[in-house]
């Protein structure tokens, strides 16, 4: 079984580039050039140098002894929350800004949900002196104020999107419309492993630094580079794609993605796309979607703005369909409990998104000697208002 992208831009039956003709020239340019660019020595050197000296990589792989004791199995945390800007999102934006520069683009657009990708994009645009426009659902603008302020201070223009549910899906629509209206000078930095080919593969490659480091660090710390399992939260699925990437072909490693159940997968207030969705085409990719019988996309819900998306990357659709990876869900309440547990046992406040992966530790069978990796994709700094609100309740 092949878990990588094929020459047509598909993972099995999922993916492709279902783009309107207005996007053809830009997507075609990316498709024909991205591999040559990102595999060139100069690109790799620049990327590695920034990863080390600017982002602060490698991010630690931390053996969390107190929650290990709590769960009766060995829990390691991959500390993507310690990256510059507080999440894994910077791995991708560094890669894409270097790529945009090589393509001669002078204007960057991005969509953002929780604001982590928006901040990571605004950051690399400041770093390279390139104009930056971030589309963000109006609801997310109001619930993620600290990140909105950061983007503004970094010099980005934040445009609130008032269509649809005013969240990530709507911000993505608006970013695509911007690209259609500005086809010459603009590069669209998509923040997850979603969108038309080559984005899912390109973003997964930039994020694959996570699993490359896990392998080295595990080998160093335990003598064995393969863990029993890896857990990561999944919205679009970029941190999970990065954490799974170098383990895809080793079947001994169990891969677990955790979707946002919201208020429960049997309610309408959920964002668990693989669990409740069906295949279709959204944002130029064939993948699982939350939709009604008429093919209209339904509005997702999650306490975490970063997972509040009605689609999922085509790579995960394929891993799900082929059963290479398992996808679980965690409800808002389970997530908050898991975040509090980590905070009080390890002194680490996780992002609400990452806390979904932690919540799944309650739902799987682990042997005492198993090595379990949780990808701690982001820091909880941005979520303090939500946490305080819940704790006071």
């Amino acid at each position, binding site marked *: 079984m092949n878990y990588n992208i094929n020459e047509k831009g598909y993972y099995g039956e999922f993916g492709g580039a*279902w783009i309107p003709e207005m996007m*053809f020239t830009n997507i075609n340019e990316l498709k024909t050039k991205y591999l040559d660019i990102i595999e060139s020595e100069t690109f790799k050197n620049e990327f590695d140098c920034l990863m080390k000296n600017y982002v602060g990589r490698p991010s630690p792989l931390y053996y969390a002894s107190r929650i290990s004791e709590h769960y009766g199995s060995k829990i390691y945390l991959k500390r993507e929350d310690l990256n510059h800007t507080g999440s894994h999102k910077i791995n991708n934006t560094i890669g894409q800004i270097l790529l945009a520069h090589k393509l001669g683009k002078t204007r960057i657009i991005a969509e953002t949900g929780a604001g982590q990708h928006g901040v990571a994009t605004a950051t690399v645009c400041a770093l390279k002196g390139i104009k930056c426009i971030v589309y963000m659902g109006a609801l997310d603008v109001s619930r993620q104020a600290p990140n909105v302020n950061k983007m503004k201070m970094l010099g980005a223009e934040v445009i609130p999107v008032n269509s649809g549910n005013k969240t990530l899906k709507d911000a993505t629509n608006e970013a695509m*419309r911007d690209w259609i209206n500005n*086809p010459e000078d603009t590069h669209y930095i998509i923040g997850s492993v979603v969108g038309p080919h080559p984005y899912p593969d390109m973003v997964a490659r930039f994020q694959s630094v996570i699993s490359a480091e896990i392998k080295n660090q595990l080998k160093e710390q335990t003598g064995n580079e393969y863990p029993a399992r890896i857990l990561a939260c999944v919205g679009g699925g970029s941190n999970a794609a990065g954490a799974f990437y170098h383990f895809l072909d080793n079947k001994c490693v169990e891969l677990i993605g955790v979707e946002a159940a919201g208020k429960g997968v049997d309610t309408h207030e959920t964002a668990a796309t693989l669990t409740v969705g069906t295949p279709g085409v959204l944002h130029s990719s064939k993948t699982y979607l939350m*939709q009604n019988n*008429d093919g209209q*996309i339904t509005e997702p819900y999650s306490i975490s703005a970063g997972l509040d998306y009605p689609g999922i990357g085509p790579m995960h659709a394929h891993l799900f369909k082929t059963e290479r990876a398992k996808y679980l869900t965690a409800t808002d309440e389970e997530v908050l409990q898991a975040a509090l547990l980590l905070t009080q046992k390890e002194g680490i406040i996780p992002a609400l998104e990452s806390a979904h992966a932690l919540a799944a530790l309650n739902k799987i069978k682990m042997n005492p000697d198993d090595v379990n990796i949780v990808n701690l994709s982001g820091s909880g700094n941005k979520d303090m208002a939500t946490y305080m609100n819940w704790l006071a309740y």
Partner: protein
Amino acid sequence: MNRINKLFQDKKENILSIYFTAGFPNLNDTVKIIQALEKNGVDLIEIGMPFSDPIADGPTIQHTSEIALKNGMSIKLLFEQLKEIRKTVNIPLILMGYFNPVLQFGVEKFCKTCNNIGIDGAILPDLPLNEFSENYSEIFTQNNLNNILLITPQTPAARIRQIDEASKGFIYMVSSSSTTGAGKKADDFQTEYFENIRQMNLKNPRMIGFGISDHAAFANACKYAGGAIIGSAFVKSLNVKSTIEESISYFINQILN
């Protein structure tokens, strides 16, 4: 013969195509609008199938789509409304919309139903040329349904030739790089691009669309192509008079004269 092909065989210039969103302003206006458009001298009609996430559309069509969906429009219901349409009108009809609702309805069932009702073409902007040619071209042909493909100022010449090869009916020339209803003025249009395409001597006739909103823009577009398509400006005008019929009559007269 397919009514679109017949139209372009009989008429070579100043062809007016009008787009409207099915289910807007009211759920059951569809037939009424089609009849009024034919009566007022429109040559071709594009019936919009609303989608929740119309990425190639500007605010006007986004808005009409949202209202239409709230009103309860779906492909299934639209076919229901159009079941008897050929008893009253003879104008070529095209269904325009995004691919996902068609995929969920079933592409083959969609094409067959179009054929049974007397729909002549489809415009599905996010069904790209390669996917269409590999997977769906045959089903469309079997059902006498023309798939109308788009070109833009950015489309390379070699690709325009491929699109011309794969097209039946006409080629939809997007006037400038934009979403629909961008409201650029007639003199902003890239006449150089229009002229270059005209000189390519494509086998299919061409219609120019996106941002055509008044008589001047229509007349200008007609200099370079068989005609032009008006969407956003039309749906915005549906409430300018006391009835839809009067509004349509008023708008079409403004465009043609």
